[in-house]
Structures are given as C-alpha cells and as structure tokens.
C-alpha cells in the first residue's frame, strides 16, 4: 500500500512565487498608450481581495452573499469618516474600519447564517440594499455628494501620486490575502468548511462546529471587504468617496467573478475578478458605441445574462472548465 503524499513544499510555494513575479513584472508593461490600464489594475486588485473572501464564503463554505458590496462600502465609509469627520489619524482610521467591517459581519452573520439557500441569498441581498441606501441617503455619509479631502496612505512619499506605485501597493495586499487564503483552504479548517458545503448534517455529526465556522468565515469575508474598502478610500480614489461604487450591481458582479472562477478555487476567483474587471471596461466602451444611453442598464443586462449563462452551461465555472479542456489536450499530445 502506498499512502498518498501530502502536497509537497514545492507545489505549495510555486503558485505564490509565480504570482509574485507576475505582480512585479506585468505593471511595468503598462506604459505609454497602455498606461490607462494602471487604474484598472488597481480596482481589479480591490475586486480580487473582495472575491477571495467571497470565494471562501460561497465557493468553499457554500454560503451565498448577495450583499458583499455593502461590506466593502462600509469599510470605505468608516475609514473615510474616521479620518475626516472624527479627526482620527490615518492608521487609527484604517484599524477602526477593519474592526468595524469584521464586527458588522459578526452581528449580521449571527442573524442571517441560520438561514439556508434562497433565504440566505435574500437576507444578504436586503443587507446590501440597506447599506447602499445608507451610503446614498444618509447625512453622515454625505449622501450622493459623498465625502471629500480624504487623506492618502503614504509611506514617506510612497506611493504618492504614481499610478504604478499604487498598483504595487494594492497587489502587495492582494498577494498576502491570496497566500493566507490558500493556506486556510489547505488546512484542517479548510477541509471542515468544505465538509459544511457538501453536507452540514454529516459535518456536524463528525464534530465540525458548523454555525461557528460559518460565522468565522463570514467575519473573515467581511474583514477582507472592509480592507478593500479602506484601500478604495485611501489609495484608489482621488481623495473623494461617493456611494456609486457600492451598488447592488457590484454585488452581482462579485458573485459573477466567483462563479466564473469555479466557486471552489482561490486562483479561479482571482482570474474571475480580473476577467470580469476587464469585461466591465469593454462593456462600458461597447455600450457607448451601441448607443445605450444608460450604461448601467447595459451592464446589468450583460452581467445578468453572463451569470445565468454560466450557471446553465458551465456550472463548474469557466476557469476550471478551460483548465480541464487544456489538460485533456495536453494529455492527448503526450
């Protein structure tokens, strides 16, 4: 009998190292006429952080969240308000926003995670709508006008106003988040959350603390969303924070990214985030060309159709399906 070998250290470190190389090299290529891609890479990085949390929650633990943009916005607004209206120093505002994001997830998760399937989706959807309305209508958040004069994250002049440096800052955070998430998925806790996804009752009978673990992952996803929000407020935006980014549309887009990436893969989610961010840009341009007066409507149409199409024709996700196809061809050739 030959027992299966655990994943070797080389396999474990290979992916993150290649990923780090790509993070360092690829932004350098975006020069001259391609420099417009740098801001896109920044927002793509924020979505990668959001999607990593959502992949852990949806893909691994099997708990749907349709209100994730709300947590993202919550992090951004708490950070922005703390740094402006409440007069906190930048570092304090960052820490407060991260804790607030995790706490909001803890409180809401405690209430909604007892629900299952469609009911959970509906509850998180409502949560996203409530938070969106709060950002849009509340006096505290500055309503539709938003908040101005936000401080910038700055380490002795870095990243300053350089779009390239901002890309590096955001993607350094993405790298850390991805590596930690990969570790989690390969740990006993990762095994337990997947067991919950497959069969809650059987997992509980084996001693897996089902509700506590679901709640912890929900809190982790909320924390990561707040982290993305902080970077949005203090790095990505030109010192201004408005409610338009944290729409229901973004929550749907985030779910599309997770599904596109194949639900159960951190790398897949990452690719899903990048592909969707790119698609979003193309769609906006295409929408203008076709003559859609309201771009948002066109986006909704497109991403709604994409999500339904994916679930019907490619339920295991685009990334795993393409990977399988590639593997089959490669095997045939060798």
């Amino acid at each position, binding site marked *: *009998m*030959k027992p299966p070998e655990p994943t070797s250290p080389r396999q474990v470190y290979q992916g993150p190292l290649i990923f780090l190389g790509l993070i360092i090299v690829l932004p350098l290529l975006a020069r001259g006429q391609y420099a417009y891609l740098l801001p896109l890479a920044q927002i793509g990085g924020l979505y990668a952080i959001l999607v990593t949390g959502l992949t852990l929650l949806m893909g691994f633990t099997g708990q749907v969240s349709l209100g994730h943009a709300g947590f993202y916005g919550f992090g951004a607004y708490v950070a922005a308000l703390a740094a402006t209206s409440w007069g906190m120093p930048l570092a304090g505002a960052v820490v407060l926003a991260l804790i607030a994001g995790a706490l909001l997830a803890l409180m809401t998760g405690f209430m909604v995670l007892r629900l299952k399937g469609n009911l959970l989706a509906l509850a998180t959807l409502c949560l996203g709508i409530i938070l969106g309305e709060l950002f849009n209508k509340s006096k505290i958040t500055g309503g539709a006008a938003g908040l101005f004069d936000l401080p910038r994250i700055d380490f002795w002049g870095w990243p300053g106003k350089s779009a390239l440096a901002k890309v590096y800052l955001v993607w350094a955070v993405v790298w850390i988040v991805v590596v930690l998430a990969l*570790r989690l998925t390969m*740990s*006993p806790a*990762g095994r337990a959350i997947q067991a919950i996804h497959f069969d809650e009752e059987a*997992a509980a009978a084996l001693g*897996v603390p089902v509700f506590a673990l679901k709640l912890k992952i929900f809190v982790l996803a909320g924390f990561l969303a707040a982290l993305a929000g902080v970077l949005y407020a203090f790095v990505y935006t030109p010192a201004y924070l408005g409610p338009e980014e944290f729409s229901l549309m973004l929550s749907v887009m985030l779910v599309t990214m997770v599904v596109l990436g194949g639900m159960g893969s951190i790398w897949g989610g990452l690719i899903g985030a990048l592909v969707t961010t790119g698609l979003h840009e193309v769609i906006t341009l295409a929408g203008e060309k076709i003559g859609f007066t309201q771009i948002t409507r066109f986006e909704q149409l497109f991403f709604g159709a994409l999500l339904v199409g994916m679930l019907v024709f490619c339920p295991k996700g685009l990334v795993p399906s393409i990977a399988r196809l590639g593997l089959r061809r490669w095997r045939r050739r060798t």
Partner: protein
Amino acid sequence: MISVMSEGDSFLEVQQVARHFGGQRALNEVSFRIPDDSLTAIIGPNGAGKTTLFNLIAGALSPTRGHVRFRGRQIASPNQACAAGIARTFQNVRLFGGLTVLDNVMVGMGGGGLMSGLLGLQSAREQERLRRKKAIYLLDNVGIAHLASHPAGEIPFGQQRLVELTRAMATEPKLLLLDEPAAGLNATETAALGRIVRQIHQQGVAVLLVEHDMSLVMNLAERILVLEHGRLIADGDPGRIQADPQVRAAYLGSEET
C-alpha cells in the same frame, strides 16, 4: 481495551422517549438501556421509528417527551453527541463527495482553528501529519487505503459505505450507530462488513445497528430490540426474538419466511 464505566449499565439510557412530527407519533414511550460493551441491533418494519430513534441518540433531533442520556449526560446537538463519543453513519451514504476519501476521514479528526490554518503554524502541520498517518491506518484496516486520494463520490458504492464507517471511527467513538450499513451491498460485501463491525466491537466500541438484513443481524447482534409503530415490542437475544410470536407477526413473519 474495553473501558469500565462507573455508571454501570447506564452507558446509553433511553427513557420513555416520545417523538411527534406534527400529529404523527414516530416514537412512543420507548425505554431501554445499553451497556458499554454491547452489540445491539434495532429491527422493525419500515416506518417503525428506527431512524428517528437514531437521530434522537445522535442529537440531530430532540425528544418531544422523555430523555436520552449518554454516560450520564443529555445530548442536545450532533456536536455534543460527537464530543461525548457517539459516531454515526447514515441510511443513505452521506459522504463529502468532492473531497478525497482521505479528507473525508480526516474531517472526523477535527483539529485546527481558523487562525492556525491562516498562519500555517509548524505545530499544526505536525499534528496534521499525524492525522494523515492515522487516517491511512484506519482506511487500511478496512482494506481501502489504496483509494485514499480518490474523490469519495466517484468510488463504488460498497466502498463508499466503508469510507463512511471509517470516517465515523476517526472520531474515536465509544458508541457507533450504524443506520442500515448493509443496504445496497452484495453478499460478499455484506459478509466483509459483518467482519469489520465485529472487529470494531472487539476493540471496545459499543455498536447499535439498524438493519433489514436479518441474517446479518442474527449473525452479529448479541441483543435485538424490535420496534413497531414507534413502540418497543420486544427486547432479547436473537434466539428469543426469532421465537417471539409478536415479533413474527409484526415483522419477521411478514417479510421473512
């Protein structure tokens, strides 16, 4: 290896337990005790309340009346049941289909909070290595270690049953609940299963078995409880149960000749 219980024969105590679903009585005033070294079978026609009784013992359901005590403690949830030393299998095999056979077994070994998972601590890695070794050993015991790296949902049904049994054993139970473990198995597989169950019992684990395969039950069990319409109608050794006219009328007579 048989542990001596200070509680004597109150290892598992089911006392005047009733469970209703809406207006329907699935179990009614059922009482029995099981000592810590027993291999007991529960039989009865379909709908007699056998699985409901299992779910009550495993903490998946709570009784409408009466109580279930395991080693002197009341069991209120599946987590509590597992921590107290009760493990179970399900009537329809319920593996984590997309996980490997090895991972299925290792879920039963717990371990690792979220933080140690995130940080990948050295001590946690060492514990994980020991868990893996033990899981392979347990799978080898039932002859399926070669399937360890296969997705559990893709192996033959008979072997899935063995994975589920091994997964339950990975929690190091003191009482093992087997819900129709031979359902869907052929004669050879059933015979092998019988040997494995006996082996588990010899290791000092009490076994409570719900089963329709009468030859397996008569062959394995030291004691048989018979349920009919949610009531316990007989309790005794296989010889006595086979001779019991009430049991013959209710169950054996109608299904077995």
